[in-house]
């Protein structure tokens, strides 16, 4: 049976995983201000929901689940409220744009245009380097679903950047 955790442990784990959470939020939102907003909201939710964390689960996975949910809520709200318009190209501040090459821009542009599920899967699998099993837990989907979303994301990105994409055969 899953054991409830000690509050002080959660407090310690939050501080430990804060940088990882912020990196993930940066990749999801593509904007440092929005990433900070998302993380602040996520931290508030951690405070409210820390009892739902079980010590058997990975804290990082649990925190990322919350970050994904906050980001989804934020995007949903924005559809109705017309909040601040972020640049179409996520992750790219005007000053940074000069520093990265053209190909990166095109890939980032395309990642920003992907449907939410595919974007989240691509960021978690490729940006965060997580296993399909972990990604499935975070997004609440099945492993085959993770693979198919990743395949679709790769296909779209490859097409957008004129890349001849040949998927590898999985054993």
């Amino acid at each position, binding site marked *: 049976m899953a054991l409830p955790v000690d509050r002080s442990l959660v407090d310690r784990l939050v501080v430990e995983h*804060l*940088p990882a959470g*912020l990196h993930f939020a940066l990749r999801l939102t593509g904007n440092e201000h929005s990433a900070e907003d998302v993380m602040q909201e996520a931290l*508030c939710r951690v405070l409210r929901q820390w009892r739902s964390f079980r010590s058997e689960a990975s804290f990082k996975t649990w925190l990322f689940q919350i970050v994904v949910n906050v980001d989804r809520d934020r995007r949903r709200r924005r559809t109705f409220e017309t*909040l601040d318009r972020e640049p179409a190209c996520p992750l790219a501040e005007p000053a940074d744009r000069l520093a990265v090459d053209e190909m990166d*821009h095109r890939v980032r542009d395309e990642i920003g245009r992907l449907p939410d599920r595919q974007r989240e899967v*691509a960021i978690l699998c*490729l940006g965060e*380097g997580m296993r399909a099993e972990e990604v499935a837990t975070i997004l609440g989907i099945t492993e085959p679903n993770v693979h198919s979303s990743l395949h679709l994301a790769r296909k779209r990105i490859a097409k957008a950047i004129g890349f001849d994409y040949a*998927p590898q055969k999985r054993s």
Partner: protein
Amino acid sequence: MNEDSLDNQIREALRVEAKTEQVSRLEAFWEAELHRQRQKRTVRRSLALAASLLVAVSIVGWASRHDLGGQDVVEAPQPAVQTAPPAIRPSPETPQIDVDVPAPSIGREPTALEQLVFYSHSPRGVDRANESLASVVDDLIEQVQTGQADPQSAVDDAAVSTAEIERELLRRLVRSKDGEKLTLMKILAAGGSMKSMPALLRVSRSAAHRDEALATIEQIVGPEGLARVVRQASNPQVRMILMQRMLADGSDESVAAFLSLVQDPARRAEAFSAAGSANSFPTETLFALLRSDDQRIRLSAALVLGHVNGPDITRKLVVLVSAEQSAPTEAWMALLACRGELAEKFLNYATGRPQLLGHVNQARVQWARMNL
């Protein structure tokens, strides 16, 4: 090209670097939230304890009354006649209440105070009160929209209290459309309080109404009160604009309030960034605050001047420290923090002059003590 090289390309594009200030800001936010939650928990526990005590006292009171009743029956066997206690005369402020004639009751008549309490708890009473408040606020909005009255006099002349008007305006602000939102904010600027801050900060997150919402906030709390609002704001852009408004005001009070944010390690980076990008920078006020009686204000003024630096500020600092032997150490500290040819030249000159070297060394020691 195969899947791996595509993945590498995507990984490369997804590479991000979080700033250390961002992480430290979030850590500070987490600490603050933890502290706030601990306070809430303490308050909740105290309330629960107070409620339990109240219940215990009520039970004891009821039990003792019950015992007395028993004694009465023994002492007076004839049927007890319930007499109504003397009615409480309503105070002149007591509102006239339209109470229906009650059905004949075997108990005593309710007193005026009880009638008032029952009425205020009945849904009909609440609805009527809300209806009248809503109509008052409707009138207010109309007066302001049509220009019949300015918001301040409309609020002052309203038949209900400012707090009630504020509550109703805040309730409407969330759902209102663009045009009405502006009017509501105009009225809030005249009759709002700190209670309006969360709602106005929420409105300010939308770029469409940000300027109006922040202007309303400034009108309510004044430029010197904006530091408190900055601490409540969760949106970094909003915090930045609020800080720049404090600097643009330029008064001693508002700049001192801005410096209180510089003293806060969690806000310092943002405050520097706001000062660095401010259109209107209060150089004169900061120089005046270098002589403040409060050492924290002097130090934070030196920090800001040193951070912003620039030829103009450096020149003024050089003039200040070379003209006066008793120039504050903080002016020397600001000069030490300045980058540029002029600052470097002067400091080289000062280190070769025994009468100035002491000041330079003192400022260096002070910087080292601050451990920034």
